[in-house]
């Protein structure tokens, strides 16, 4: 093995790989189980985008709060939400992270700083600004972070939030996950500019663009803007150019894609493959260690599914609880 030339130690590299792999296998498994009719509702898979959630979230702690999107599984896993609770939630079980009331689009775990996936596009940005405001007011050093897709970044809520974070100098990071599509609509149709980073500049928020399939690029760029936010340097925007491997939601025939697009992405823009190549070719991590993680992850996912399947459904008494703290 060579000396570690990366900005993370070996253990962190393995941890990063484990997180990315967990997200990937979680999603691949959901894809299969959804296809079998075992999962109800709208399910949006994060596969292909793992490097972004992982590279960013490695800089965060439980005080830091993120507001996620409809495509939230990756953010949850990277932020430390228990995959058993997630899986049970997606299966609609009472043992789920939200006791079966939220489902895929609403997984939250405030104890981990995960403020919730969100079915309303762009809604998370103001909420995360609130987290940033709370962090600033309470002085605990945490930050707020919101995720929006290339589509959601055209929502007024997101755009207003850029301005709010700028003028209040909030410890806030806006992550734009640009996977090229909002449902079937191309980012080239929905915007007249090349970059969301430039757009942010018009609000006084500095922006940076990174290759979201490159874990290391994400990790380094995120580290800098998160540090700046933490130190009182104000908000930033980070646009991650990335690809999603599956359809918009499960069931999408993806006829809006170019021929061979998915195959090309899987072959050339797979963040996991790229990561593995980088760390093994540099001879820092042994491929066998990664293989071992692969098996562990698969086993963990299998267990999560088994537990979810076996878990009880919520019952009639659960229907009307949890509306208010007290009414």
């Amino acid at each position: 093995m060579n000396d570690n030339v990366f900005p993370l130690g070996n253990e962190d590299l393995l941890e990063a790989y484990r997180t990315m792999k967990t997200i990937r296998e979680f999603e691949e498994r959901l894809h299969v189980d959804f296809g079998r009719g075992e999962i109800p509702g709208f399910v949006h898979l994060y596969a292909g985008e793992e490097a972004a959630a992982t590279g960013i979230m490695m800089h965060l702690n439980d005080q830091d709060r993120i507001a996620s999107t409809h495509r939230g599984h990756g953010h949850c896993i990277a932020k430390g939400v228990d995959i058993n609770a997630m899986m049970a939630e997606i299966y609609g079980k009472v043992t789920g992270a939200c006791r079966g009331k939220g489902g895929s689009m609403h997984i939250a775990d405030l104890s981990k700083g995960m403020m919730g996936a969100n079915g309303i596009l762009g809604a998370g940005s103001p909420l995360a600004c609130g987290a940033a405001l709370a962090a600033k007011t309470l002085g605990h050093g945490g930050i707020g972070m919101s995720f929006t897709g290339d589509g959601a970044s055209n929502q007024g809520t997101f755009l207003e939030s850029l301005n709010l974070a700028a003028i209040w100098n909030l410890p806030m990071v806006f992550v734009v996950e640009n996977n090229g599509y909002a449902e079937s609509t191309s980012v080239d149709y929905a915007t007249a500019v090349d970059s969301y980073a430039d757009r942010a500049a018009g609000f006084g928020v500095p922006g940076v663009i990174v290759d979201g399939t490159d874990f290391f690029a994400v990790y380094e760029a995120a580290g800098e803007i998160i540090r700046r936010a933490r130190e009182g340097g104000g908000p930033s925007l980070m646009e991650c150019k990335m690809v999603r491997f599956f359809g918009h939601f499960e069931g999408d025939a993806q006829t809006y894609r170019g021929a061979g697009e998915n195959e090309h992405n899987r072959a050339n823009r797979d963040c996991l493959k790229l990561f593995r190549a980088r760390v093994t070719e540099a001879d820092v991590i042994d491929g066998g260690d990664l293989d071992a993680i692969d098996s562990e992850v698969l086993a963990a996912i299998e267990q999560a599914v088994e537990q979810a399947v076996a878990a009880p459904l919520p019952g009639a008494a659960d229907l009307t609880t949890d509306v208010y703290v007290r009414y």
Partner: protein
Amino acid sequence: MARNLSMKDAINEALDQEMARDPTVIVMGEDIVGGSGSPGEDDAWGGVLGVTKGLYAKHGDRLIDTPLSESAYIGAAIGASTCGLRPVAELMFLDFMGVCFDQIFNQAAKFRYMFGGKAETPVTIRAMVGAGFRAAAQHSQMLTPIVTHIPGLKVVCPSNAYDAKGLLIQSIRDNDPVIFCEHKNLYAHESDVPEESYTVPFGEANIVREGADATIVAYGLMVHRASEAAEALAKEGIQCEIVDLRTLSPIDIDSVVESVENTGRLICVDEANPRCSIAADVTATLSQEAFGSLKAAPQLVTAPHTPVPFSPALEDLYIPSAEHIVDAVRKTMAP
């Protein structure tokens, strides 16, 4: 000639026929064409559930994909409607109205009044409503009471394919802003639909079943639950009359009053949450207008005062069921 058509296809046909008939009709919304700017097929989606599929091939640029900016494009549809177009804007899920509600209730709804009768706002906003799709709290609501509350809006919620086609054509031709609510769990529901163009007028309820013992008022999916309940009760000799409101604003209260004058019993069924609901609205109006005819306390059957839960196990309990309705009818029959 009538054919069996799903509500989804009936809506598609209404749009198609109105676009063919009137060049000022345009249709816009997120992914209603689908694939705009993408390398793949034209018309790749035709709407998130395929309702507008095929229209782009026939009507081209009068179908417009929008960016993910409901305030901007719903507002643009409203503005355009005051300038000579008859836009049909799709708000995908009515649950999304929170990001563009101002354009709907402070702009479209109020122009005519605020401007002293000098504006017409012939815009139709199509949106999915209702639960049962396992789509959870932000994609499953029955927000009809909120839009019905607003003066200046018209609110439509068909229960079947025939009504959907006729009411949508009426909505497009109507010179006031219309919120056209499509229950996502009725898209596949089929009924006989004439090929030719026709309208179903606003403010005329449909007596979908006659009966002398109790009046059940419902709309949308609940009409079918009411029918199941009536079927079950008929076996016991209790004959229910079912009033399908079809449009919630204007509302055909006269038909309800007339029915209650015969039956003396009123059960209002609403998939919406209970507070300030359509069920409450109809019950209150009837209690005031037909008090003397009521032989028993009117009954409300609604969703509980909770958001829509995700888990199918809970969602099925959330949506008013035929059993709930049967129970409510029984209450009105108790001595």
